[in-house]
């Protein structure tokens, strides 16, 4: 594996039951590449949280996953409402998810903090009314 492999996914917000399909696909591809289980787990959880967020908050979007010999980069790009206060959104327990999302088992305000926990680097760029881009890196070595 000498070159960078790029995977692209389009995430639809229309069907909550399908949220996680992209993360599931990435997880099985990483397994086939024989990457360390801990790396796969970190990528799977961080990306799944991000994918769920896109469906709940941002009307879907695009996910790009770049796999190089040294790291995996996950870029979550949406044209959703944007995040007004990133610091507040990063606070564990803070959530703007509606009640119907909580009844589906999500919206505990742990998504973004958990994405940070499972990635080695994370950055958020967001403009209200334009959209949000979250970039996460998980190191392989």
């Amino acid at each position, binding site marked *: 594996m000498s070159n960078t492999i790029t995977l692209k996914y389009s995430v639809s917000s229309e069907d*909550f*039951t*399908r*949220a*996680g399909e992209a*993360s*599931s696909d990435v*997880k099985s591809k990483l397994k086939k590449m024989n990457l360390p*289980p801990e790396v796969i*787990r970190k990528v*799977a*959880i961080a990306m*799944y*949280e991000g994918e*769920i967020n896109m469906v709940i908050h941002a009307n879907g979007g695009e996910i790009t996953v770049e796999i190089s010999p040294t790291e995996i980069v996950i870029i979550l790009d949406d044209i959703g409402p944007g995040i007004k206060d990133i610091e507040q959104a990063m606070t*564990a327990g803070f959530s703007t998810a509606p009640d119907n999302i909580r009844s*589906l*088992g*999500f*919206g*505990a*305000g*742990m*998504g973004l*903090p*958990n994405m940070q*926990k499972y990635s080695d680097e994370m950055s958020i760029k967001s403009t209200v009314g334009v959209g949000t881009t979250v970039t996460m890196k998980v190191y392989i070595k």
Partner: protein
Amino acid sequence: MTVKDIAKLLDAEILCCEDSTDKELHTACGSDMMSDVLAFVKDQSVLLTGLCNPQVIRTAEMMDMVCIVFVRGKLPDENMIKLAVERNIPLLSTKHRMFTACGLLYSNGLHGGAMN
């Protein structure tokens, strides 16, 4: 304890992946909130939940969990069973409530694992 032992202890029905029920398990967690499972669970191999939607299967998949027990008699639909079969995750359903189901497994040697 194996998945089969869990089924026996909880008087639970095994709904799929019967071939994968001999795996040895040591830890479990119980939650209806998948957000919390993703944030707080570490290396637990059994998920007990009263939530019944496809994201339960996906959460277990991402967390590398071995089996899922639906409590309070919840039954997954065909789509969920299909997802679980694809990922080889046995699904169990018990009539016990969450507290009782967790208590039965705990008192028979299954533990909660390390706090993180």
